[in-house]
């Protein structure tokens, strides 16, 4: 069975960032979804199966940490990555601890590094998913 195409959600209040990220991954075989806010992101997640979300921290209305905390509860399997220009160490620590993120990147990012990490994150998603299925199968068979 062909694995379904991976879907990545980018959340950032700056449109230009979203555009450049989309361009970056054009040659990869991903489905890219964009949201300009946490609210919009949640809407998209409700209507689509998303495997990886990459979000900024400093956004108006719902900030990144709030968003991530919601994701942790509502979509526990979803892999969460932070991409931020904000360098306040305390905020970063808080966001990692509360939001339980897989990785964080600082803006400006290195294109190649980002691409590699995205690939790794999706591999991880697949591994975890496969593992789950196998476990379920094993339980069923018992």
């Amino acid at each position, binding site marked *: 069975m062909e694995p379904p195409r991976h879907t990545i959600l980018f959340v950032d209040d700056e449109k230009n960032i979203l555009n450049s990220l989309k361009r*970056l991954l054009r040659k990869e075989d991903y489905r890219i979804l964009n949201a300009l806010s946490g609210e919009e992101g949640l809407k998209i997640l409700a209507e689509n199966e998303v495997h990886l979300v990459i979000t900024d921290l400093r956004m108006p209305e719902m900030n990144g940490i709030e968003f991530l905390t919601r994701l942790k509860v509502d979509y526990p399997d979803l892999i969460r990555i932070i991409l931020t220009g904000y360098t306040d160490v305390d905020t970063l620590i808080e966001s990692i601890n509360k939001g339980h993120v897989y990785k964080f990147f600082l*803006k400006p990012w290195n294109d190649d590094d980002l691409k590699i990490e995205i690939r790794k994150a999706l591999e991880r998603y697949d591994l975890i998913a496969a593992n789950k299925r196998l476990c379920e199968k094993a339980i069923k068979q018992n």
Partner: protein
Amino acid sequence: MSSLNDIGLTDAEILIVESSMIQALKLQTSLEQYDYRVTVARNGMEALKYLKEHNPCIVISDIDMPKMDGLTLCRKIRSLSQDNYTYIIIITAKGNKEDLVEVFNNGADDYVPKPFDLEELKSRIDTGGRIINLEEKHKKLQNLLIESRNKVKIVFDTLHEEIVVLDDQFQIVSANKAFVDGAATTFKNAIGLQYFTYVSDKKLFHSIKTIKKLLDKVFDTGLPQFFLDKSADNNGDDKYKQITLLPIKDGTGNVFQVVFVSKDITEDKKKTEKISTLNKQLIEKASQIKEKNKKLKQTLKRLEETQSQIIQSEKMASIGQLAAGVAHEINNPIGFVSSNLKTLIDYQDDLNGLIELYRGLITALDKKNKEELSFDVIDQVAKILNQEVDIDIEFVQEDIMDLIGDCREGTGRIKKIVIDLKDFAHPGGDKIQTTDINRGLESTLNVVANELKYKATIIKDFGDIPTIKAYPQQLNQVFMYILVNAAQAIEKQGEIKIKTQQVNGKIEISISDTGCGIPKKNLLKIFDPFFTTKDVGKGTGLGMNIAYSIIKKHKGTIEVDSVVGQGTTFTIRLPVN
């Protein structure tokens, strides 16, 4: 005025004592011719009575008189205790030697034989006057002497010192009140006392033998002697007596008496000792205060340094916050610009590939026989070839890549500056890290590039130095201060040379400029807090002080060398750890 008045005997009066009235009056009249004041008494008893109430200085008396004869009168006059001397002239008929002797033995001063000669009597009266004058003078002198002696005695008697005057047998010749009272005796009894017997009995002094010897010395040498006698009183406490021996010399310079002055100075000594102790305490207190002052000064200096560091920290903290905010604002656009440029290159690569294919087609078409192609194809091929020349396609293709490359370089520099800024003013950067000094210098140079670039050429001579454990942001701060100062020291154009090397197990960083240099008098002060040569508001004077503290924190040294008009070199040495 009589001759008696002339010699100074005012109110001089002559008393005639004569039983014969006629002779008395005759004599009175004769004498009054000479202006003498004359009174008459008829016998000795009257004369005496008169003498008790009046003051005749001369008495001229007969011998044979009723009731009291002249010689008895003489004796009686002499036994009267009178203030003034009475000069007695006896007039007598008796003339032999025994009678005369008797006259004088009874106290008469002169005699005149009967019958007497008036002139002779007058001259004897005048002689008497002279004698009385002498007597008066003598009495006056004596009074003066007594008066002055009394004055001296008063002074002596007020002194607390016990003063005795001793002769060469050590007998008391004179003593003052203090001694007399102290000896519980009278002045009269004190005179003639054998002094040293008295002193031994009363145990007045402790070193009596020594004092005796000193006394002998005064008599022998004529020089004053001094002695401090220490004894004990009844309670066993110390008693001190200051003894002074002063010679009294006669006309030939021999000492015939010595003044023995003894003063109890126990109290004085106690007071002096107390003063001495108090003085010592004062001196000690003064030196304690001096110590305290010194410590206070040191503490003040430390406080000033701490204050300057706190001010600087706060400054840096607020700069840090600002930098963090600015960094974020810059990071976002840099993020997508940078990424987009990379994507752009990829797009351009793709396009270039495609363009090459198109050009290949055009070239092929261009080569073909014109008869084989349709008219508008030939037309389009021609248009394309022209367009290629017009826009200089080869140049554009190459230049697009260069252009994008330049933009990427630009964004790369912006990224670096933001990173350096973050490194620089990171508020949480107070941890020891493995530090690469050369990298730190590069990073700092980037940050201050704007301050430097118009004024100085930077020459970097980075040696092969090991990394050390340090606070990299703080070291960068130090480099920044020195570099900015160096640039400001250069008026128009100059050079800043940065050299790093390892010397004797230490990392040596030297930053030299060709600026105006620092005068010698300021060299010692440049690390002082708040010292600045800039105008008010243009510099806090804290930079070098902070630099010094930071280097010290790293257990390193920072030195400055400078020549006015030539330039300055800062040399930092850090231990390799």
